[in-house]
């Protein structure tokens, strides 16, 4: 040590910055605590991250897109570079989107990146939500995150819908017409809500501007706030983890924030960006130049919303046209039941699931260790049943295309779907629960009897015996005892012995 005052030695850049921050803000203790936080790893934990990173991509690409999009329904003539639509009367919204697609450098890539990121965003949310459900991560103390998550899901669905509907092209305009119809079908307040959005009978001249501000400012703001809250809760309460070697209720087994978890996260973000970029660059999505501008007098065959809204369309298609006449003066159209009531009920059930779960399960303990889906057959079966219903409704939403492509009679297909809505979910419930119980039993049987290796032994001439690889329970001190199931995954495939003795 030399005596050079308070600058005794040379530091790296990081060290220099850290020392400066510490002098000014005194964050070392806080930061060290955060840096030493441990994050577990499992392949299913990636889906939540995927949602986050695709949201980041959405924000970035969305910001650039707002520089070029004009949210206005003023009618102009298209005089841009795309020859097949030259001379068409269209709104400035559509014309500006055409300009982005055809005239702005990288504009089409940007649009496709944004749209693909939205599709992946919603898929990742649903996968993530399914993981939370099937592993019981919504249980105490994490119910609030579940509620936040369901709200984010609904907001995201709306966000996506508004995003592609504000372009005023023929396909999405059809969807807005359906939306308008659904809103109008709400009893008592329907026409007022419709006027709040459209300011006139459909289509009016203002809805694109309102969709725009909702899509660009209001809903992203809400989403950002909710995401921040969601992540803060996860950060503070610590991420759940599966039972495994040394993993218990009272600890977390995994990697620390720095360097490993941060590196993995950054890599995942870049990877997501890369894959979305590849998709955006090679796979066409939402080609509004094929569909042309919206006119209420036209509808394309096989019009479909984005995939995450297909279940709504399916619900509309399958419900019978049951208009309800009230007092001979008012009519509640059939679309209200299937377009408003059914979705609202389903979403409310989804939202309230942690509370509903308390009816089913009297366990009030805090849980930091995740369940394997098989270890709670009832919950897994209910989840499978819900997914089946969602799946049937989604497939019903696209059944006009399926009927054409696979040359199936549409009427027959429709009635099959109607029957499937009632028959398949209970069937799936029963089958899934039985499957889970069987899997549980197979785990315990494997622990008791060992795993078949496929090798056959001949202990005596004329007798054959299957060679089994047994399990051994190991104490923390290294002693052995009979193996018991404790929630960790039981391998069913044998591990080959390393040459030179056991492990």
């Amino acid at each position, binding site marked *: 040590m030399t005596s050079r005052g308070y600058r005794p030695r040379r530091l790296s850049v990081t060290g220099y910055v850290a020392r400066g921050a510490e002098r000014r803000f*005194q964050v070392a*203790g806080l930061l060290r605590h955060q840096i030493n936080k441990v994050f577990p790893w499992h392949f299913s934990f990636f889906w939540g991250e995927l949602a986050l990173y695709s949201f980041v991509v959405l924000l970035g690409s969305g910001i650039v897109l707002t520089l070029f999009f004009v949210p206005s329904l003023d009618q102009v003539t298209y005089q841009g570079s795309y020859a097949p639509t030259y001379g068409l009367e269209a709104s400035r919204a559509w014309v500006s989107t055409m300009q982005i697609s055809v005239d702005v450098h990288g504009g089409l890539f940007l649009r496709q990146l944004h749209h693909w990121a939205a599709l992946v965003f919603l898929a990742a949310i649903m996968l993530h939500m399914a993981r939370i459900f099937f592993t019981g991560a919504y249980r105490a103390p994490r119910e609030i995150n579940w509620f936040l998550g369901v709200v984010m899901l609904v907001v995201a669905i709306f966000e996506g819908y508004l995003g592609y509907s504000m372009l005023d092209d023929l396909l999405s305009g059809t969807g807005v017409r359906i939306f308008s119809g659904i809103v109008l079908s709400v009893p008592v307040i329907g026409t007022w809500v419709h006027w709040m959005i459209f300011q006139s009978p459909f289509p009016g001249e203002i809805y694109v501007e309102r969709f725009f501000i909702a899509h660009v400012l209001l809903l992203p703001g809400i989403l950002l706030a909710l995401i921040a809250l969601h992540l803060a809760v996860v950060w503070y309460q610590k991420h759940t983890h599966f039972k495994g*070697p*040394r993993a218990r209720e009272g600890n977390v087994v995994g990697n620390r924030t720095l360097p490993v978890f941060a590196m993995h996260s950054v890599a995942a973000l870049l990877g997501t960006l890369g894959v979305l970029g590849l998709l955006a660059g090679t796979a066409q999505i939402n080609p509004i130049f094929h569909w042309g501008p919206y006119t209420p007098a036209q509808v394309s065959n096989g019009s479909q919303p984005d995939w995450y809204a297909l279940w709504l369309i399916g619900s509309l298609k399958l419900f019978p046209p049951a208009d309800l006449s009230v007092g001979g003066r008012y009519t509640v159209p059939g679309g209200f039941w299937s377009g408003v009531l059914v979705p609202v009920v389903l979403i409310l059930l989804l939202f309230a699931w942690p509370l509903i779960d308390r009816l089913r399960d009297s366990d009030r303990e805090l849980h930091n260790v995740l369940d394997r889906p098989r270890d709670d057959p009832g919950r897994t079966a209910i989840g499978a049943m819900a997914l089946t219903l969602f799946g049937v409704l989604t497939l019903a939403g696209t059944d006009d295309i399926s009927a054409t*492509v*696979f040359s199936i009679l549409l009427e027959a297909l429709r009635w099959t779907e109607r029957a499937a809505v009632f028959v398949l979910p209970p069937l799936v419930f029963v089958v899934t629960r039985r499957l889970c119980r069987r899997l549980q039993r197979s785990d315990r049987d494997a622990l008791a009897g060992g*795993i*078949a*290796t*496929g*090798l*056959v*032994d*001949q*202990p005596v001439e004329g007798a*054959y015996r299957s*060679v*089994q*690889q*047994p*399990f*051994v329970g*190991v104490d923390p001190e290294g002693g052995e005892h009979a193996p018991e199931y404790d929630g*960790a*995954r*039981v*391998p069913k*495939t*044998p*591990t*080959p*012995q390393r*040459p030179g003795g*056991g*492990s």
Partner: protein
Amino acid sequence: MTGPAVKADAPAHIVGLWATLNAALAGAIVLYVEPLFPLPLVLHLVGAALVTIFGVAVLVAGRRGGAGPQLRLPYRSVAALAGATVALLLALTWVFGLWVLALVPYPLLVAVVMVRRERLPVDATTQAGAPGTRSPVPVPVERPLTTPEVCARALEIHHAQQRRGRGEAT
């Protein structure tokens, strides 16, 4: 040819004789059919050839010591399911068009991942006393576990630093 060698090759000889009989019957077609349309002859000979190839395979396997009860088996058959799924997918692609391949490879990816080694490697032991499994997956340990003593010491130091930061005696 010695006795045991003939005996060992007997299965292949049966197949070979059968294929020869077929070839002879095929040859007899020539007496009855104009050579202008030899498809029956070709078909019959191809059939006999297929059986001959099978017979040669049996011969080779028999000589390499492949005779005797099958004592090494795969312990599950995910590969069969995966292979048949691929075949079904290709059939559907042929019927409905190439776009099928764009929509449906994801379960196949899962299947490919699941088809890890289905048979123990050749050097796995077959004697009684197969190895026990101590832990399902080896857990890499970068440094020794933190014992309670180390934790207590670290806590002590941390508290001392906090007190120093607040200006109290350490």
